[in-house]
């Protein structure tokens, strides 16, 4: 049977749609399962084969709140991720501005060098950083995490902001300069408003990366400054495997960022594709 051109196109759209849904479901399934498990009793969580229909219970959530105090961990996560994002932007914007609009012979290699620091395995510098924190009294403080997160996210933030600035014609800034704008006004009244979409997605990415970061938060905090990632970890081993509670705490930890991510998908996609998708 011959298909018309239109039918071929419809078929292709349909198959691609099917594939996208399949991939999406596969990726979403663990999260779905985690949320499901968090509403089961510990016994039901262990059942094999797993039960898909059960009477949901909130007992896991209640117990977590009683035992650990979700909100103090959540507050640490909020402070640390917003703090490092704001400080990161304050550094990344001027850095990217000078690299994008006052390019020198070494700009490209500086950018590459900054990115290359991301290739270092974090555990390689665990000892020196731990000792630095210890000697400066920063162990188990939010300050330490803010500093570290700012530093580890900075290369990506500079790189992203740089690529957004690069899309803006230099002429526009020069026009502003001729119109009498000081460098600060040039940035605040022309550059930032034009690139606000890109800046928002950069901030979003930094928030997500900081929120999810687990290596440094586990190694540098104990209780006072511990964020949600540390809370999850605390439920994983010492008391044996409590699947339902672990699921509940993970759900709690992921929820805020999932909601933010959902609300800002468009920005995020544009940001992660470095402005290629408009």
């Amino acid at each position, binding site marked *: 049977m011959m298909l018309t051109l239109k039918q071929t196109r419809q078929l292709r759209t349909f198959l691609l749609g099917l594939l996208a849904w399949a991939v999406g479901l596969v990726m979403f399934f663990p999260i779905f399962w985690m949320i499901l498990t968090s509403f089961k009793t510990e016994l039901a969580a262990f059942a094999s084969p797993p039960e898909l229909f059960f009477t949901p219970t909130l007992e896991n959530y209640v117990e977590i709140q009683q035992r650990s105090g979700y909100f103090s961990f959540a507050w640490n996560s909020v402070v640390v991720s917003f703090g490092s994002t704001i400080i990161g932007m304050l550094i990344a914007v001027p850095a990217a501005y000078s690299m994008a609009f006052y390019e020198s012979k070494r700009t490209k290699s500086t950018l590459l060098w900054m990115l290359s620091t991301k290739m270092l395995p974090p555990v390689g510098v665990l000892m020196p950083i731990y000792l630095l924190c210890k000697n400066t009294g920063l162990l188990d403080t939010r300050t330490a995490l803010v500093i570290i997160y700012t530093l580890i996210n900075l290369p990506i933030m500079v790189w992203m902001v740089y690529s957004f600035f690069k899309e803006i014609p230099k002429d526009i800034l020069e*026009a502003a300069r001729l119109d009498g704008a000081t460098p600060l006004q040039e940035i605040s009244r022309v550059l930032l408003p034009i690139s606000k979409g890109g800046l928002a997605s950069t901030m979003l990415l930094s928030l997500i990366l900081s929120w999810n970061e687990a290596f440094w938060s586990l190694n540098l905090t104990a209780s006072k400054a511990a964020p949600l990632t540390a809370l999850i970890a605390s439920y994983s081993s010492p008391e044996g495997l409590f699947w339902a509670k672990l699921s509940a705490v993970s759900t709690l930890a992921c929820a805020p960022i999932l909601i933010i991510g959902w609300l800002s998908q468009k920005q995020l996609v544009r940001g992660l594709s470095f402005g290629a998708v408009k």
Partner: protein
Amino acid sequence: MADLKIRKLRKVFDGLEIIKGVDLDINDHEFVVFVGPSGCGKSTLLRLIAGLEEVTSGTISLDGRDITDVTPAKRDLAMVFQTYALYPHMSVRKNMSFALDLAGIDKSEVEAKVQDAARILELGHLLERKPKALSGGQRQRVAIGRAIVRNPKVFLFDEPLSNLDAALRVQMRLELARLHHDLNATMIYVTHDQVEAMTLADKVVVLNGGRIEQVGSPMALYHNPVNQFVAGFIGTPKMGFLDARVISTDPHSVTIELAAGTRLQLPISGARVSAGNKVTLGIRPEHIEVVKASESAFQVEMDVTEHLGSDTFCYVRTSSGETLTVRAPGDFTGEFGQRVGLALDLNHCHLFDESGLTIPKLNQRAA
């Protein structure tokens, strides 16, 4: 008042000299056009004047004030960019008022100036739009409006029409000429299009390779180019060039022999050349006439003819293999391969020496 003086201006980029010592005076109310081939440094020269590039050496002064190291905003200049460079996040009104807002000028005064510029440029109904929602011609107008509201001493334009389609370009060219007349302003205009230069300029500055080749009125450049480069650059279709040799000279004439064998006696002073010198004859298409083969010693073969209606451009080949363009009347008909004679208007023949410099004519037309 706006008297711009440029002295010994040089600009070096990464060890490469782009502007190689420019001296230029621009007078009040003048429309000055910088013209030259792409890459010759026109934009760089304009940007140096605007203060967007740092001067390597030399000085720029405006009305006697040295502005060589003054920041762009304090120079009292406004620039219209090739890409328009409108602020995409601001309305047309905001685009035009931005400079005045920054300067902290009174709101009602700003509004009056914006309304004024909008009226001149017929932008009144577009004031609330964003640049995105404008056509190319309208964006161009907003860019000009942004310059007008500032009432600058000098307007700078960098190829402002090159992003417009051909019809719109002609229309905007007329509007710019009218604007110059109405505002009575001093304008410096950069283009690679010599037609724009000829039609707009009071004074044309021909640039080549970072140097000024010639400064003069469009007619002066047309009639008395100082060298072969200017002669070839100004005028459409381009001036034709033929290799020749000097046969004899006297104070009032030079006799040359073309590579094709024809001898011509030109009303050019013989003081600068002597018999045997290699020279180049330059002649514009409009100063050649096609005649019957029997009526001229200078015989050529017809190549392509282009009919424009008002004129016919005939491309012809000489017996030495050189090509010439002839501008014939609109009803001219010629056949491919036909042998015809050419009659050159000897008063409009230009002669260039081996280094390309013009050998002066006896009766130079007043510039």
